[in-house]
């Protein structure tokens, strides 16, 4: 029997939760909250990618977070300057867990925070001279840095600085790429525009600027994997097992050379569609490179995706793909055997960024679990279109939900597991509800790939079946009277 509420039940729940809103916000929020229709009917279409209402406690971030935090930050041999006041770089320093290999401070700059630390005089007189000086100092103190990116914070676009001119001049003087990125936090409505702006800056300043000597018919680029807890490494392993040659990783554990030579790929395979479909479309238009979406969460989607990717290649690859799938089977079965009986029938609510609200559904289902509600922090219409068929009818969909909505839905639906971010985590802990962070993998991972499925299953089991959840009630009442068992 399904644990998912009916469409009518979900509609009633949504109406009830919206009751307290002022008229304007209520009308607007209603468009973002719908019961799922797997057929994707118009009346159940979720409105998305529009401004958050002020004062509602959105979980969204900004364009800077989308560019520096997501797309550019993981590129390890480039120094990323958080250009503006100190805060943005400080709060995003090393917390996303995009793993990278290399010597920190020498040829790997991912776990560091470089900032122009704007002072009042920089806002008043402009920061261009300071920026030029910073570029020189980076070249001198970090001679193995292969490039510099300038990640604009809010003030840059408001005070009229010309970071493009500075970037051109510095690149000429220093002999390395210097990339200006106009990802000021007030642009757009969420992280999403920052992804797009970052993609465009790579397109305009890096992509196709280098060549390699050797190419093969099996060259692919792994796009939209940020290597959270090693995700990209676990994914790369599958692609290599299929016989493919991965010439670039975007952008987890990536390098500027990989970005610059990706135009030589025969196929772009993309995991996070939301944050990097732009560059795939660019390469399709500019170089005729096809691209294909895939999903490496859980056995069902992994196998489906491997076969879909293999279709782009010859029999050699198809055969190796089947052989790889066969070799994974025992591992998949072992995980399902071990954790399935502990997790079967458990219900899940999700609120994640732009991919995982749909991409992890299959992995939960592989363990016999059921996703009864999901939502995106910064998804677009095409993300929801891809989501409707993945969920049962009546599951609640929430776009950019407010803290109030998420808490109210969870109180009413009482899922066995909530998966969202660190801002949400402790709210649900107070409510006695098992929780996993689904942005950072709660400091675990990888969750992608064959080995990642085992880690995923183990972590969900840890969250749901830990005995501490049984300790919430003392053996006395609120007024202190001891309850005899």
């Amino acid at each position, binding site marked *: 029997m399904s644990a998912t509420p009916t469409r009518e039940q979900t509609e009633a729940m949504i109406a009830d939760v919206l009751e307290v809103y*002022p008229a304007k916000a209520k009308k607007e929020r209603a468009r973002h909250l719908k019961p799922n229709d797997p057929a994707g009917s118009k009346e159940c279409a979720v409105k998305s990618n529009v*401004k958050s*209402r*002020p*004062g509602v406690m*959105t979980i969204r*971030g900004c364009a800077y*977070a989308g560019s520096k935090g997501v797309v550019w930050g993981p590129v390890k041999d480039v120094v990323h300057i958080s250009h503006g006041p*100190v*805060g943005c770089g400080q*709060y*995003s320093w090393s*917390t996303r867990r995009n793993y990278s*290999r*290399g*010597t920190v*401070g*020498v*040829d790997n700059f991912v776990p560091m*925070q470089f900032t*122009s630390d704007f002072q*009042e005089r*920089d*806002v008043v007189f402009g920061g261009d001279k300071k920026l030029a*000086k*910073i570029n020189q*100092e980076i070249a001198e*103190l970090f001679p*193995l840095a*292969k490039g510099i990116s300038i990640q604009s914070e*809010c*003030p840059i*676009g*408001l005070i009229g600085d010309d970071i493009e001119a500075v970037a051109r001049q510095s690149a000429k003087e220093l002999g390395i790429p210097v990339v200006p990125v106009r990802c000021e*936090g*007030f642009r*757009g409505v969420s992280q999403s525009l920052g992804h797009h702006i970052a993609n465009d800056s790579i397109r305009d300043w890096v992509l196709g600027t280098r060549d390699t000597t050797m190419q093969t018919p099996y060259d692919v680029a792994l796009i939209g994997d940020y290597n959270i807890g090693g995700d990209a*490494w676990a994914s790369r*392993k599958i692609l*290599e097992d299929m016989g493919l040659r*991965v*010439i*670039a990783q975007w952008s987890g554990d990536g*390098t500027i*050379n990989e970005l610059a*030579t990706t135009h030589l790929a025969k196929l772009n395979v993309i995991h996070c569609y939301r944050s990097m479909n732009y560059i795939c479309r660019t390469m399709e238009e500019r170089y005729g490179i096809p691209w294909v979406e895939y999903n490496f969460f859980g056995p069902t989607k992994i196998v489906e995706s491997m076969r879909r990717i293999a279709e782009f290649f010859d029999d050699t690859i198809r055969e190796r793909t089947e052989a790889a799938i066969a070799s994974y089977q025992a591992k998949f079965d072992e995980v399902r055997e071990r954790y399935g009986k*502990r997790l079967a029938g458990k219900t899940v609510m999700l609120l994640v960024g732009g991919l995982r609200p749909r991409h992890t559904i299959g992995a939960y289902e592989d363990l016999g679990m059921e996703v009864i509600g999901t939502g995106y922090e910064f998804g677009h219409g095409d993300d929801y279109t891809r989501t409707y068929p993945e969920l049962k009818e009546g599951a609640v969909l929430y776009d950019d939900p407010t803290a*109030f909505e998420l808490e109210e839905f969870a109180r009413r639906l009482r899922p066995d597991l909530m998966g969202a971010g660190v801002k*949400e985590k*402790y709210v*649900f802990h*107070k409510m*006695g509800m098992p929780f996993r962070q689904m942005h950072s993998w709660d400091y675990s991972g990888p969750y992608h790939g064959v*080995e990642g499925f*085992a*880690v995923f299953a*183990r972590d969900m*089991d*840890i969250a749901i*079946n830990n005995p501490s959840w049984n300790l919430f009630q003392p053996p006395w009442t609120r007024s202190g009277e001891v309850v005899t068992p």
Partner: protein
Amino acid sequence: MSITPPPASEVKDHNELFEAPEYQAQFERKREFEAGCSSDEVERIRQWTRSAEYREKNFAREALTVNPAKACQPLGAVLAGLGFAGTLPLVHGSQGCVAYFRSHFARHFKEPVPTVSSSMTEDAAVFGGLNNMVEALDNATALYRPDMIAISTTCMAEVIGDDLHAFIEEARQKGSVPPGYLLPFAHTPSFVGSHLTGYDNMLRAILEHLAKDRRGRPTGRINLVPGFDTNVGDHRELGRLLNLMGVDHVILGDHSAALDSPADGEYQLYPGGTPLGEAAEAINARATVFLQETATRRTSELVRDVWGQEAVTLTPPIGVNNTDRFVAEVARLAGVTVPREITLERGRLIDALTDSHAYLHGRRVAIAGDPDLVVGLLGFLLELGMEPVHVVSTNGDASFRERAEAVLATSPFGAGATVWPGKDLWHLRSLVFTEPVDLLIGNSYLKYLSREAQVPLWRVGFPIFDRHHLHRFPILGYTGALHLLTQLVNTVLEELDRTAPDHSFDIVR
């Protein structure tokens, strides 16, 4: 659960998985596409970055900041707001900032951090954020029903020159909030000062707002202002001490309830904080004691110059002498004697110090953090016979230098120290490689240097993301000092065991 739990360690995660030969081979293959530097070159540069020559270049930096140990104003403003009962912080400007403040605090406190944004975007950059403010107040009051909204600003709102006072008055006229609703506000530009400045600005605004027209009969109370103190155990410890002394007091800015609330099955948005009525009475108190200087500078001016109250700013009561001064000062202000129980507590601390001194005496230390924390800790280190060598505070100013040097001058153990206001953790790295130390003291971000230089790190300060629950215990008062001492000496002992040859692996330390 009747089914036997599988051992978590049977599954290899990122800690072990990638050590496997197939992954190591994968990493080797990937190098072909990276066009990276040779390992010889990497090693050569690595050694060079540890040299005296590099230190000189590093300290010649004029424009670039690398790994700073400070954050921006509105972060502090949010903490100030969370210190008052029923209060929701609202930050006017871009919404990403609030996402960052909430996650930053959540990672340190392991607690929910309710804060809202007025979510300004490009149109607001052109036309100003008035409409955002009005709607933010409409929505926040409807959804979250706070008793007070503490309003601060992001740098976006500051750069375009939004006028909070005018906006709030307009929102009142439009009926966004009921008449007389509490809406303290502070401009908190992130390109001025640090999170401490923002804490100060917001705290002053809240107290000014609450105490307006409230001057009345003297209460005889003592106001206590801990400041930007991220050890929530401190607020409780201070309360306990003052209760023991029989001092009628109120803590102004007590975020210990908001950031250390019980898990009992129900999430409470506003689990406590300084009651608004009591905060309003602060103006009528006998005196106000400030336990940080940098984070309360403008607030202490309010108390001293506007309220005309006795305002005493002390070094945070960290360690014996600092706590002695605090206890003595409170006793003087309140006209009470110090109870025997506190003297006993003090004695137990001294007993513990004497037990541990041999492992701490003469140990060379590098310390980095917020200015007042560092000044307080320096006093404690000197009492233990430890030798501060590098003293760094990215948000420390001339006043910090003066105060730190004054403390160092009180002891021969402070003679070898240099105070570095305004420097960052990349400067600290050069200092530690060219003039080595035995121990690092600071926040979680020092762990990179700790690992690279193979110097143990004792975590104190903010943020601490990678160790659990330290912030739940006090570091102030004699009890706080006992917690600090326990962590400190055991950090040293762990390192001793870790590096000891077999024969010196002693069972008794």
